């Protein structure tokens, strides 16, 4: 049942329906459902460009929302992938904190080379993700509950161990300069290197989801788990891999923040849990799985970051920042939904012929 064989058979005889796809390539660009999230991002940007003034659009204004977007994005992209496969991960907050703390303890408190700390920290993330995936697929308890439990558990473990080992809850770290450059420096004094890590994650995950065959598996698993299993996809392994992906993303951000700020705090990171889900949903990924795109998640992350930071450029009373965030969030998703629906209902004009 190899595909190669059948592929040959087709290229011999099947020229007839070639025309069906060719014109679609252009129209595809317009009907892409991500256009909704893109337009939402642009609209929000223009809004703040008007009310935030030149400061907002200047280089350092851009860094204000691009830096948080990059860190959020490194987590949001694998979270989006997982959501497309129909699962949630609420443990990213504690994974971030625990990885961050692991690095600080191993390389700061114990004085090991920083590479050891980084490897152990990232390894911790992968192990947590693996356990999440294993429990979800074996027990069929909803991932919402499993990862919530992991989040509590890991937070407790990090607090308890850190206090037991260091007697404190905040551990300092001095990085070797290569590590500082690679993870925790500013490009032209303003832009975190995390932006490049984000781009890396986008390329890798974008390839997996939209270009490689594994993307098809992920859509299928989220679209209809039973049918996906019936077609022979190793659904459990797919899910476990995706859980490892989200945890790895969270660990990576933990490492980046620790090296960037030269310390780790036990209480960090919990904000990423919701923020990553929000970014992904604004980006048009279906909360129930089966639908979404990496581009959408990128725009969702940018929208969320711009909304979150933009208000400080407007000079309005920041007491109302939350109100503002709520209203803009709703507007962004509404806009997005409207465009997606328009895109989906579009089809070539067909008459009864």
């Amino acid at each position: 049942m190899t595909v190669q064989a059948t592929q040959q058979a087709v290229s011999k005889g099947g020229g007839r329906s070639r025309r069906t796809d060719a014109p679609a390539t252009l129209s595809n660009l317009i009907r892409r459902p991500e256009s909704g999230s893109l337009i939402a991002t642009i609209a929000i940007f223009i809004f703040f460009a008007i009310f935030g003034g030149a400061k907002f659009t200047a280089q350092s204004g851009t860094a204000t929302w691009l830096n948080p977007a990059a860190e959020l994005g490194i987590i949001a992209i694998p979270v989006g992938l997982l959501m497309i496969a129909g699962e949630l991960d609420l443990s990213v907050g504690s994974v971030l904190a625990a990885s961050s703390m692991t690095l600080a303890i191993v390389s700061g408190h114990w004085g090991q080379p920083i590479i050891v700390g980084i490897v152990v920290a990232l390894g911790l993330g992968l192990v947590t993700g693996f356990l999440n995936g294993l429990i979800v697929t074996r027990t069929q308890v909803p991932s919402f509950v499993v990862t919530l439990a992991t989040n509590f558990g890991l937070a407790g473990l990090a607090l308890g161990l850190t206090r037991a080992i260091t007697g404190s809850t905040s551990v300092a770290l001095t990085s070797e300069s290569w590590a500082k450059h690679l993870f925790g420096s500013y490009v032209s004094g303003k832009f975190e290197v995390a932006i490049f890590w984000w781009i890396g994650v986008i390329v890798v995950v974008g390839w997996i989801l939209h270009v490689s065959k594994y993307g098809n598996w992920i859509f299928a698993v989220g679209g209809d788990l039973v049918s996906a299993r019936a077609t022979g996809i190793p659904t459990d392994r797919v899910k476990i891999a995706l859980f490892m992906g989200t945890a790895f993303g969270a660990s990576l951000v933990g490492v980046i923040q620790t090296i960037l700020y030269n310390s780790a705090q036990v209480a960090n990171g919990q904000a990423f849990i919701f923020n990553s889900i929000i970014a992904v949903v604004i980006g048009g990924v279906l909360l129930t799985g089966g639908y979404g795109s990496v581009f959408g998640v990128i725009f969702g992350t940018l929208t969320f970051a711009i909304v979150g930071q933009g208000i400080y450029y407007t000079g309005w009373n920041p007491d109302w920042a939350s109100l503002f965030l709520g209203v803009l969030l709703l507007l962004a998703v509404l806009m997005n939904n409207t465009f997606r629906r328009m895109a989906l209902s579009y089809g070539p004009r067909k008459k009864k012929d």
Partner: protein
Amino acid sequence: SSSSDKTANGDTKAASSGKGPAIFVVGGKADDPFWSRVKRGADDAAKVVKSGGGSVTWLAPKNYDNLGPDAAKLIQTAMSQGADGVVGPDWVPEAEDAAFKQVVSGKKPLVIYNAGGIDAANSLGALNYFGSDEATAGKAGGEFFGKDGEKNVLCVNTLPGAANTEARCKGIADGIGENGGKSSQLPLPSSKFGDPTAVAQAIKAALLKDSSIDGVVTIGTGDANAAASAIEQGGLADKVKLGTFDLDDTQLGRIQSGKQLFAIDQQPYMQGYLAVSALYAYIQWGIELPQKPILTGPAIISKDNVETAVAGSKAGVR
């Protein structure tokens, strides 16, 4: 504050162009009662700044989940908006110091307030430090307990792991330790934060479990309300004394009626007020204070001085 009108947003040195300076203040979460008093002080000082043509802009994180990095980003936000001077708390030095150094290296005056202490201010090259010191405040509370005769104090921490709350509990332990008592921490998980009933019942459970505890101190006023309820429900009102960091009307009421031993006030209004006015005076006229640091607290409010505190509270500054 709506004080940051666009008039002050010149890129060049605002003072030399005849307009007042654009001062940026990084502060705590806006719905935190404590920070609302700091902001009140800053707002009052801003009136003076405005009268000189300047502006004061308040920047605050939306939550404390990622405090250090968030604060660092706010400092960068301030700089990118052309601040002529920055007031900021050094909550997480490792995370924020790089950003503070950008302020100083950009030749803009910096004032550290509320957290970090004078050591941080000196090492960063800041003008001064305004505020109390968590450890000192904790120590004062611990000493007060000790002098009152308590031997075993429980420090309830609803934000375990955060540097300032940890320092408060440690200070309590140090203070009472010097007076022949001891203190342990009760860290509560995040699933209880903002639910006074869950906090109250957890405190009650801890009190029932260890009957040697004769004092409870909380890291904030909301938790103090919960702790008061816990003491009442445990039937321990005669035995267990309550103290708290920070102050509000409800605490004052309990201190007046004798149900609470004390509250540790860092007099937050003065932090905002003094930090902003001092920075403004420096930018505008080069005035520098000789005394470093300027400590605004701790002030222990107990039944001896509660009446004056009530008056300040009515004015919204305590």
